[in-house]
Each structure stands twice: as C-alpha cells, then as structure tokens.
C-alpha cells in the first residue's frame, strides 16, 4: 500500500459567507491539507463538527473545486481531467452519506436505487450486477430485497442499500461520510464490519469520515485527525490511539465515555470551550485556546506545521521539538518590542520582558497548566518525544495536582533546566483569585526547593480561558512581590508576556507595587 490513490497537495477550500447586507467573511473550511490515501487502505478522518472533514471528503469526490492546491486521483489532477477521464473518475469514486433516511429515494425500490448509477454510466448486465451487489452487502435473498421499498427497512439495512449502490459500479475508492452516526448502536458494528470486509474482498480504498474516534480505532489502518481545516495528527491507527502526539487527539480520546463499572468515581475529561468557527481561526496554533498544554507566548504566536516526528507519525504541535522543520520559530515576532521593565523588590529583581519565554536565559520556566488537564491517571495516553517532554508523566502528575498547586519536571530540550507547571484556575470554578495566587506561590516555592535562581512566568491564566488580564496581572505581581520580600534563594523573577497589550497591563501593576 505504498502508492497513493488519492493525494491532496496543500489543498485549501475557502467559502464566502454573507454577514449582513454587504459584508462577507471568508470561511476557511480546509486550510492547507496535504494528505495521501494509499491504495487499499482504510483511512479514518476524525474531527468534530466544523473541522472541515466533510468538505475534504467532498473535495476528494470532485464535488468541490479547491480554492488552491491540487488533488490527484491515480496520478491525475482531478480538476484538469477531460470528459472521458472525468466520467471514469466519477464511476471509480463513490460516496456513502450519513443519513440513509434521506439519501435513498422513497419512491424507488431497492433494485431501482442500486440500478440507477449503472444506467447513468451505461453499464450492461445490470440485473446481475444489482443482485450481486445486494448479495455482497448481505441483503439476502437479493431478489426479495430488490423488490422492497426503503421504508420497510431498518437503518442498518438502508445503509447497506446505499453501500450496494456504491458497490454496483465496482469503484476503486469510496468516501463514507459518517455512515453509521444515524443508525442504532447495535447495528453500527455490522455496517462497519461490512465496509471493512468489502475493502478486503474488492480491494477498495476507503476514506471513513467520522466524529467518533472509538469506531475509527477498530475500522481503519490510519487515522488523520482534523481540527479547524487542518490535519493536526496523522499516523497508524493503533499507534495514534495508544500514543497520541497532538493534545487535541489526546483530548478527543480522553473525552470518549468508555463503559466501565467504576465510572461514577472517575472524572470524564471535557475539552474546554466550544469548537471554534472556521470564520475566525485563532493565531498561532489553532488549538491553543482549548489546549491543556498551552504555553503563552509560544503557542499563540507560532503556527506549527504538520511535521514528521518518527517513522510514520506526524503531528502539528510545538510541544514536540525536533523532527524536521519543527523547531519553533516565532514567525510573527512582536513588532513593537517593549523595552524590559525592572524593579528591585527585597533586593531581588522583578523583570518584565516582551517576547518568547523559551528563549529566556533562566533556570526555570513556568508553564501555565490548567485544571482542565485533570484527566486522571492512565486515561490520558502519552505524548512522548525523544528530547521533548514526557507529557504522559506530566499529565498524570498534573492530573493529581490540585488547582492552585504546581508540579516540576525537567525541561527537556529547552534552554531552562526545569519546567514548573502551575495548575491555574479556570474562570467559573470559584475562588479563582485565591487559586491563581496559590499557583503562583507554589511555583516559586518549588523553584526555591530545587535551587532555582531565576524563573520566568507567563501570564498563568489569561489566554486560554478568558481570565481577565488585569485581574491576572494584579494577583500574580502582588504574589511574586510578597514572596520576594520573604526569605528566598531566588534572585530574578521574570514575567514574560508575548503581546504588547498584556505587557502593558503587567507593567501598570508592577508600577503600583
């Protein structure tokens, strides 16, 4: 399966949406996807609503013409095919849609539904092909089923009719867009097992589009995870599920409610916030506003490319240093660097700088971890990267750390020696101010215990969850000042703020100390 049957090369699909009378906005449904689907494989395209997975499926079928980029089918650009080529492409690529209650014509018999595409493509021997297709999808006896109308059939049976309709044309490639989300849980496995079997017996390549990562685990060879128009993780299914490398994949997995007897005692992880809109894509990494590993001044500044991490695995995440082309470089550095602000407090330096926290020469940097990371031991899976961070361990440890506490880990390849994960509060948890204060103090105390002389903080609680900047600045600066006035081995505490606005808010607070 080394040869691609279908290949997306930097494909973008933008739609213009009307907003009001005159204004239009650009919806970037697919925003730069490069992806190959190999002959004979079943690739699962996983994502939430609005991720662009359906648009990508429609592009694969040639139903949409991309805004830019090329889509190759069997080596040929599908938007430049001649008439004959295009007609053959249409036969070779088939679709199965989500809702078998609306995608099958209620006035036609099952036999007519399956026969229709054969008429359109001018294929002979139709009767035999129809019966064969019905038999292949397990609608037996086929003669009897071909005379039925779809309203006599269950959801699972209807979806099998839709599969037979696709199969009758002997396609090479099938796009199945959420083929089981509308049918009963007890028959989902039946339909998916059927697709799996047909792929093997007929050598069909399958693109399985789904929001359900649990079914993808059992019915695909590779998984591509989409978020806001991009593929953020790609790899062999087994390995992606067991060792997700992108925090979004990790979060999706953690949010799957597995039936277990002791679930009442467990916490179900919920990705915070709403799935965002493709009309307003966040700057930097597009997942950063919901990411439990979000690092201020890095993730909101750098847009990570999908990079090869090892062998078959690819992820678009800045936590993974190394890999080709992944060294995080600030691609839109702050244009108006504010000069640093320094103050002496209790004989120690409190400093404000604007820039990238990972570039600072300090012993320890603080990562603004969040209570949303509390996914409990074991559930989280692992993001592990040679030379990078041992996210699995962090995740477990942070998961057991109360909000307002902090955890220390080695800094891997970063310039600093340690990373201290301050578990800050989320807005709406109650007692946020006290928890933010205590997370700040806990970080400083941990630093002291490890002989750290200099430490850099981002704003712990502003970016990700809408904690107001001024509140955050007030609480953190006063907590640090209070700590520096006591007995400590710390010589230098840096607040590292990426954008000028946050910098100025902090500068105002430091001025008041």
């Amino acid at each position: 399966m080394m040869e691609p049957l279908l290949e997306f090369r930097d494909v973008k699909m933008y739609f213009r949406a009307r907003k009001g009378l005159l204004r239009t906005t650009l919806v970037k449904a697919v925003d730069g996807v490069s992806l190959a689907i190999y002959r004979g494989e079943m690739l699962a395209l996983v994502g939430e609503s609005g991720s662009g997975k359906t648009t990508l499926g429609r592009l694969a079928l040639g139903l949409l013409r991309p805004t830019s980029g090329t889509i190759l089918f069997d080596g040929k650009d599908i938007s430049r095919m001649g008439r004959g080529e295009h007609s053959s492409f249409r036969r070779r690529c088939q679709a199965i849609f989500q809702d078998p209650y609306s995608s099958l014509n209620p006035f036609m018999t099952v036999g007519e539904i399956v026969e229709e595409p054969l008429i359109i493509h001018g294929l002979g021997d139709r009767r035999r092909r129809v019966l064969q297709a019905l038999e292949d999808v397990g609608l037996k006896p086929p003669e009897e089923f071909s005379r039925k109308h779809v309203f006599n059939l269950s959801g699972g049976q209807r979806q099998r009719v839709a599969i037979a309709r696709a199969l009758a044309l002997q396609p090479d490639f099938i796009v199945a867009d959420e083929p089981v989300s509308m049918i009963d849980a007890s028959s989902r496995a039946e339909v998916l097992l059927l697709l799996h079997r047909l792929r093997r017996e007929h050598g069909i390549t399958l693109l399985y589009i789904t929001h359900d990562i649990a079914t993808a685990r059992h019915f695909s060879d590779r998984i591509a995870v989409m978020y806001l128009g991009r593929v953020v993780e790609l790899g062999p299914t087994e390995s992606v599920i067991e060792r997700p490398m992108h925090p979004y994949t990790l979060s999706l997995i953690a949010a799957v409610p597995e039936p277990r007897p002791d679930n009442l005692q467990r916490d179900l992880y919920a990705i915070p916030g709403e799935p965002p809109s493709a009309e307003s894509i966040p700057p930097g990494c597009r997942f950063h506003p919901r990411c439990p590993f979000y690092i201020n001044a890095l993730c909101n500044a750098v847009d990570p490319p999908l990079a090869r991490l090892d062998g078959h695995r690819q992820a678009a995440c800045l936590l993974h240093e190394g890999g080709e082309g992944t060294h995080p470089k600030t691609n839109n550095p702050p244009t108006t660097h504010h000069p640093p602000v320094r103050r002496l407090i209790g004989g120690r330096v409190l400093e404000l700088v604007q820039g990238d926290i990972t570039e600072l020469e300090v012993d320890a940097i603080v990562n603004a971890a969040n209570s949303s990371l509390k996914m409990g031991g074991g559930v989280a899976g692992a993001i592990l990267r040679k030379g990078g961070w041992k996210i699995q361990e962090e995740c477990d440890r942070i998961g057991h750390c109360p909000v307002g506490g902090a955890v220390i880990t080695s800094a891997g390849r970063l310039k600093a020696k340690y990373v201290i994960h301050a578990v800050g509060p989320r807005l709406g948890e109650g007692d946020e101010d006290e928890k933010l204060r205590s997370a700040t103090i806990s970080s400083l105390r941990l630093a002291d215990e490890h002989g750290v002389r200099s430490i850099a903080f981002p704003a712990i609680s502003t970016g990700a969850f809408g904690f107001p900047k001024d509140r955050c600045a007030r609480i953190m600066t006063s907590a640090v000042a209070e700590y520096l006035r006591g007995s400590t081995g710390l010589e230098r505490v840096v607040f590292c703020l990426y954008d000028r606005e946050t910098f100025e808010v902090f500068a105002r607070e430091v001025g008041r100390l």
Partner: protein
Amino acid sequence: MDGVTLSLDRGEALAIVGESGCGKTSLGLGLMRLLPRNTALFSGRIVLDGVEVSKLPSEEFRRTVRWRKISMVFQGSMHSLNPVLRVGYQVAEPLLAGGGVEPSEARRRAMGVMRMVGLPQEVYDRYPHELSGGMKQRVAIAMALVLDPLLVILDEPTSALDVSIQAQIVRLLRRLKVERGLSMIFITHDIGLASYLCDKMGVMYAGEIVELGPTRDVLASPAHPYTQKLLGSAPRLGSPLPPEFIPGSPPDLVHPPPGCRFHPRCPYTFEACSRTSPAALPIGPGHRARCHLHAGA
C-alpha cells in the same frame, strides 16, 4: 411499554438504555403524562415524593406536578427553542406563566439558573440562532430546572453534540446531581455516557425493563444476554477487540414474540424462552434480570 417497575431515590440518577424503538422515550413521556392520545392502556402507579401522582386528575397534575416536580429535557429540545424570542425569556416563561412571579424576579431567577448551567450572563438577551449547539442544550436544561423540580427526565440530551460538548454536558449534570440533590432519569443509547452519571441502570428491550441494577453491577456482570450484547456492541478505545453487533432487529411491538421478547435474537435460547415470559429474577442486591437462565440460581 409493558410492566415496568422502577424506583429512584432523591439525588439519584437512573439510566434507561436500549436501542431505538424500545420504549425509552415512552417511559419518559408516560411519567410526564404526555403520551399521545392513541395510548390504549395506561395502568399502574407512579408515586413521587410519597404522592401517587398517577391518581391525580390531569388538570391538577398539570398545575402541581408537571414541570414543578417533574420536568423533562426532550430529545432535540435544543432545536425547538422559539427562534423569535430571547432565550432568557424562554427560560423565565414557566415562572411568568404559572408561577405568578414578578417579571423582574423571574428574570433574576432565570439568570440564576442559567448561571448554574454554565451560561454567561449575556446569553440571556440572545436569540437561539446566535448560540452554539452546546449552549442551546444548556438553555434546554435551564428551562427544565427553572421551577426547581425534584426529578428531571433527560431524553438523549447529548445525541446531536460533539464529543467535547457531550462530555461538558455530562459533567454539568453530575455537578447538578451532587450539588442540588436533583434526581434524574437519563434516557440514552450510550451506555458509556450513562455510566459516568447514573447510579442505577435499567436496560430496556421491546418495551420491557429486562435488567435493572446498580450501574456498577450491571456493567461488571451483566446478567441479561441483551445487556451483554449491547455492551459488546459499543466500540471501545481501550480494547483491541472490535465491537460486535446484535443480529436481527428489535421485534414489532404490535405482535411481540411469545415468551421472552429477546429470544429470537438470543444466543442462549432454550425451550422455556419461547413459551413463558420470564419474571424479574434477583441477581444481587438491587439487581434483577428478566431471563430464564437465572431461574435456578
């Protein structure tokens, strides 16, 4: 729905799980006395907080029980918000309509409930089309809670939502259960989701509760073959085994099969199964199953 016996304590959540068409929704509607007019026979007793509410005249039930003591989040209720009214008003409406509450007080209370379900204050004055699916579902939950009922029936409250939002809603319901001592009946086809919220689980098949017990016991040692099959059909991330499916389809409830209703699809059928309908047999403490396999135990 046929011969259903259930009980639920204050602050307890009961899951009703099963395939579509098994009567889960009818159970909820029956408790709310909202069954369609063609309901041929409704018999039995429904006792709420010591009062036999099934005996109340329908007008009194409407005035004193429905929405005040028992409320419901209907399947797809997030799609049935009135598009031309501000959502806050829709949440406050039950207070204004029958509660005899002053408009300013109604607004204050509706805002309180909306805050409780995690909606920011500005949502009060928004219209439904301005909200995301998850927010609309929270509005539907707020509407059910505004009269401070004892019991809320939730019919597939997460079925149209993304996994991330689904998890948020379940976390919210868990919090309401613990903090407010709210009793809940959670109707779903998703056993996994139910197991994060519910203390008890009732498995429905063809209008009957075929197994009922503490969620922990039902999941750890499912006694009814249908429960076993249903659990086996859920795809699991943590298991390398692919899910299985249940062959055949649920029976036609106009002519249910004789004997045990599951016997045509059951792998363990023996002769008694097609002859007599099994009684609910004890399996463990508070755990019963309607299956002849447990007759000798």
